[in-house]
């Protein structure tokens, strides 16, 4: 009897956490549909979703966030895979080099934001160096790398954090494929580039895509970097949601929840894709039907 119950008892912490998560999720979705009885909002409506998808400042926020998330994920993945290939090719997939690569992963995003300000702002280290070498006459001449409407500073900070993440996420698989199937390809006459493009990359594709999705979803929903390094306008989705949530008029709260709802929908689609990709990757590598 006790044996039968053991798996369920072990699952209790997970179940409790899931219940709390679901309560929060359901409350958020309910509020995004304009139902907050305490504020006198009782009728369910899609008005707030329509608003965030049509009001210019809200639409700009959505596009701004999607752009930052897309570019961060895209460039991180491309650079991460390239560096990963170089590390695998140089047989540096373990030891000191990997510890150095992993270092940025454990640095909090807030600290990365401070690095970015100290290095990339118009009175940061780069600007001072440019001034010292006579490249600029005054600090205003240094390009606005952060607080810019294009989100360049935010993307730069994400790259610093997420390129190592992609390397960490992909390198074990890539090293394994390269060590066995890559060796087989070389043995059959392929050069290193051909081996990478025809064997290693296709077999890592699902894992690389999964890494891309993780960064995309994270960058879409993360608050710190857009808040610290972002421009006054447009504001990223999570920043906009926070502003609406803390708005003095409590009846603005459904806007915050609708913005969160949008992030949740995109995240769920990505989670579904992630699941499909990982299942496919496992099947491909294990050679199962």
């Amino acid at each position, binding site marked *: 009897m006790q044996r039968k119950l053991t798996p369920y008892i072990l699952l209790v912490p997970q179940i409790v956490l899931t219940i709390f998560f679901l309560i929060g999720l359901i409350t958020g979705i309910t509020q995004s549909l304009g139902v907050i009885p305490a504020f006198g909002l009782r009728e369910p409506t899609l008005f707030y979703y329509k608003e965030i998808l049509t009001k210019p400042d809200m639409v700009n926020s959505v596009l701004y966030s999607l752009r930052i998330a897309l570019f961060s994920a895209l460039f991180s993945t491309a650079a991460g895979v390239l560096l990963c290939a170089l590390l695998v090719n140089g047989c540096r997939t373990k030891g000191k080099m990997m510890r150095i690569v992993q270092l940025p992963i454990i640095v909090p995003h807030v600290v990365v934001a401070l690095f970015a300000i100290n290095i990339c702002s118009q009175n940061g280290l780069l600007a001072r160096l440019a001034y010292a070498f006579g490249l600029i006459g005054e600090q205003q001449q240094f390009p606005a790398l952060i607080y810019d409407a294009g989100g360049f500073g935010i993307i730069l900070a994400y790259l610093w954090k997420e390129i190592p993440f992609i390397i960490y996420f992909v390198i074990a698989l890539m090293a394994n494929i390269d060590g066995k199937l890559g060796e087989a390809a070389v043995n059959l006459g*392929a050069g290193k580039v051909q081996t990478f493009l025809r064997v290693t990359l296709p*077999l890592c594709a699902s894992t690389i895509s999964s890494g891309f999705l993780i960064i995309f979803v994270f960058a879409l929903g993360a608050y710190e970097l857009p808040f610290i390094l972002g421009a006054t306008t447009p504001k990223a989705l999570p920043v906009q949601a926070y502003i609406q949530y803390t708005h003095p008029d409590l009846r603005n709260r459904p806007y915050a929840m609708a913005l969160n709802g949008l992030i949740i929908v995109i995240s769920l689609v990505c989670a579904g894709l992630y699941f499909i990709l990982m299942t496919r990757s496992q099947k*491909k590598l294990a*050679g199962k039907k």
Partner: protein
Amino acid sequence: MSLRIENLNVAFGETKVLHDLCLDIADGEFISLLGASGCGKSTLLKSIAGLLEAGTGKVLIDGKEMNGIQPQKRGTVIVFQDLRLFPHMTAGKNIAFPMRIRGVQKERQKETVSRLLGQVQLTGYEDRKIREMSGGQMQRVALARALAADPRLLLLDEPFSGLDERLRAEMGELVRKLHRENRLTTVLVTHDKQEALKFSDRIALMSGGRILQYDTPRNIFRHPINREVAEYFGRMNYIRDGGKEIWVRPFDLRIIPSGEDCRVKDIVFMGETAEVTVDTPGGEVLCMMTGSDLEALGIAPGDPVGIEIGRKTGMAPAEGREKM
């Protein structure tokens, strides 16, 4: 093509795997590298293929030194123990891979894939996914893929180790056939002595990163240079005869029912064959015979018998090679 290895040394860190290894393989020969796991067979194969850098020594293919030459330019192809078929490609695409790399025209690729699949008895399997194939079929695809690379030297790294006995024999025959038909020079790594004796022109028996003996199957079995080689290929009786020792295989001893100086100690009947242990004045010896010969002899434990040595000339160790 011919292969010559001169004083090859390979080490992994501090551990030396191959020690001053020398080997000569003539064009068109089928050679087996035989030895226990960890003796350096696969390391030697990878060094020949250029997948491992030699420490010191030379690998010469057709007289040309291969040190520093990239694997894809050596004309050697390994069929790995774990086959390493590309799981994201069909059988046909796996076989076509070396040709795609070389930029062979698609029509010719198709023809060659079809021909090779025929050679390995898998006609019509072009579009079959690797994961939908049995172990034996995958072995055949791996062989066909290796042949598609047009190798001058085919290196087989225990490719049949995962197969059952019947399939092993079948695959062995197939490899021998492909070797003849494609006029290849082939090196087979194996730890199965029967496989090596059956298929090879010459056998190199390895131990501890060295070649103990390199000879024809008949010679290595009949004239082993030391006890280690002798015992690798089967059991051996060491019979003292005056001041010297004679080596005799159990099958080369004949039991004579009329003798009196020896006595049957034990009989183990194994169907087709039987083992008879006999106490002799010089010590215990083991005789092997067919099951029907045992029945015809009609002996039982405790019976007095005589022993006749059928073949011993070739079994004595060469003088000065090993003291026993």
